[in-house]
């Protein structure tokens, strides 16, 4: 009997470890992707841009819809009040309240920092599946704080993705990337991102604070804090239209 108890205890102890050990790079990023899957999302956020000792704070809210990769955002801080973005697939339009008019943003401009921040329009509006865009390779595990993490190297399958290589550090239980390094072609480190303040929202664990450092800029970083996030809420289809930008 005692032998059975010991065996069962050992199994219970070992099973999670065995399960983790059996994770492959592909299965990890599939789980990361799955964790990020949503039908719709609604959020309110604050973006703090820091350059040396100077900071700027911007506020915005928005909606997202996975189908058609649609996003809508509106800024509410005084400097940018009423500026709105509409993203449909990989196209972006900006609404300028002072002109009450809409301008299509050229594709090459998507690499610019959004509102002068360290995060580009491409970064902000990116919602493609990692698995679809990258081949994954598992590297040596590491710890981030007290969290055990996998380290996965991602190499772009096609040349037209924004970053040629990424190294993501994924929490072993939450399957959320806590650290991300983004590399250009040729191996140059472009940006470092960290995701913290993980909260349970519905069935998901969601990081509510993202810090982005553009490694090409000195003493510069941007912190985006999501003050509200809701998933799979009802978002009217008209939100993702050019007509809605003028409302």
């Amino acid at each position, binding site marked *: 009997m005692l032998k059975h108890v010991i065996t069962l205890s050992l199994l219970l102890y070992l099973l999670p470890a065995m399960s983790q050990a059996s994770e492959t790079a592909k299965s990890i990023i599939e789980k990361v992707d799955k964790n990020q899957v949503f039908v719709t999302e609604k959020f309110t956020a604050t973006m703090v841009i820091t350059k040396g000792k100077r900071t*700027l*704070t911007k506020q915005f809210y928005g909606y997202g819809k996975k189908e058609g990769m649609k996003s809508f955002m509106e800024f509410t801080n*005084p400097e940018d009040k009423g500026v709105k973005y509409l993203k449909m697939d990989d196209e972006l339009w900006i609404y300028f309240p002072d002109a009450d*008019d809409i301008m299509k943003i050229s594709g090459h*401009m998507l690499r*610019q920092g959004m509102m002068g921040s360290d995060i580009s329009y491409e970064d902000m509006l990116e919602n493609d599946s990692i698995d679809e865009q990258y081949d994954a390779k598992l590297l040596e595990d590491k710890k981030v704080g007290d969290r055990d993490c996998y380290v996965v190297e991602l190499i772009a399958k096609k040349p037209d993705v924004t970053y040629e290589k990424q190294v993501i550090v994924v929490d072993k239980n939450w399957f959320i990337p806590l650290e991300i390094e983004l590399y250009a072609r040729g191996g140059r480190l472009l940006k470092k991102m960290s995701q913290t303040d993980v909260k349970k929202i519905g069935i998901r664990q969601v990081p509510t604070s993202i810090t982005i450092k553009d490694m090409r800029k000195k003493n510069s970083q941007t912190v985006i804090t999501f003050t509200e996030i809701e998933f799979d809420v009802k978002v009217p289809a008209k939100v*993702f239209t050019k007509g809605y930008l003028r409302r």
Partner: protein
Amino acid sequence: MLRWLLPAETRLIASLLIFASLLILLLWLPVMSQAKIDLSGAIRNDAVLIGTEGEPQFNNIVENKLILQRKAEDWKFYSDVRFYLYTGDAVGAIHTQKTGTSESPTDLSLDADYFLAKVLRVFVRWYTDSGDFTLGKTYVSFGNLGVFNPFEIDSSINVSDLSYTKDGLVALSYDLPLGDLSGLRVYVSPEAQDSEVSAGTGIFTNLSGFDVGMVANRAGRDDNIAGVYFKGDLELGVQGSYAYHFNDQAQDSYSEATLGLDYSFFEGEWLLGTQVYYNGNEGRGDRPVAPTDANTNTLNAFAQLDYAGFTDTYYLYGNLVHAPHEFFRFQLDAFVNLEDYSSLIVHTLAWVLSDGLNLSLQWMIPTGVGDTQYSREVLGKYIVLLRAEAKL
């Protein structure tokens, strides 16, 4: 072409009807308690030095911008009111414009201040299942937003301030969505040249990543325009437009066209844009890109240079921006007359000091000599502008 819409005699009645409707709405909307009130604005101070053959001129202009919005689920009320206080040589220029006299500004008391209040826009917009209706003083825009746009109804260009907010047009406009990225816009306005009614329509869509559209507009008597425009990507950003002008007898026609390219470098820190403008109206005495009373009333510090007037056949606009981060921007704008090769070059350094507080230094240099369009002898040797702006 569109004269059947309203005969010229009914222009006054149409104006009165629109204003009466607006007045009723303004009285009614405040009692709609569920509507959110939103007040915002900005205070801007422009200190300007203009280098002339004689003594340099100095102007100072304080602009107070007040935006009031009330937003509900089905409608929006929006007003943009500006208050200006002019000091210095601009006061004389304003006097000359308002009175139409040929007095030199220097004949007037330059010590006097001049105050001006102006409603740039005030409108109500309703959202219905059948489309959106806008009534009031509003912007009616067609074509590509940018420096040269043949379809822009108020097509004046303020070379010293390309983002300068223009005066609205009293109009009733209707926007019908035809899908996520497509739509139809129709407007009618009692404001037109020669006591006529202006009216127009535009249809736009997105084809293979390109925004494309068609426009037909009657700006006034013998002033009709029809054309097409596009904007999209071919690795470079590319945009263009073609407009055909004709009179009411479909004669005396001429064309306007634009073609522009833009590209960004170094991960978006540098942006280069260029646009070629063709004006087939050259030599006819008109200005397809003409100043309006609206802009001259709000006269900014660059009274002498606001309306360069693109009266020759070919122009080039170049734009170079270096914005390494949100706190600083360098910008170079150049307007080149491709016939006499004179140009206006505008340099701008802009700093964001803190949230909503901006400072910029701008200097403009005409390069032409003699009787060229952008001649230093005519326009002055230089203009320097120091601008401080706080957004609230």
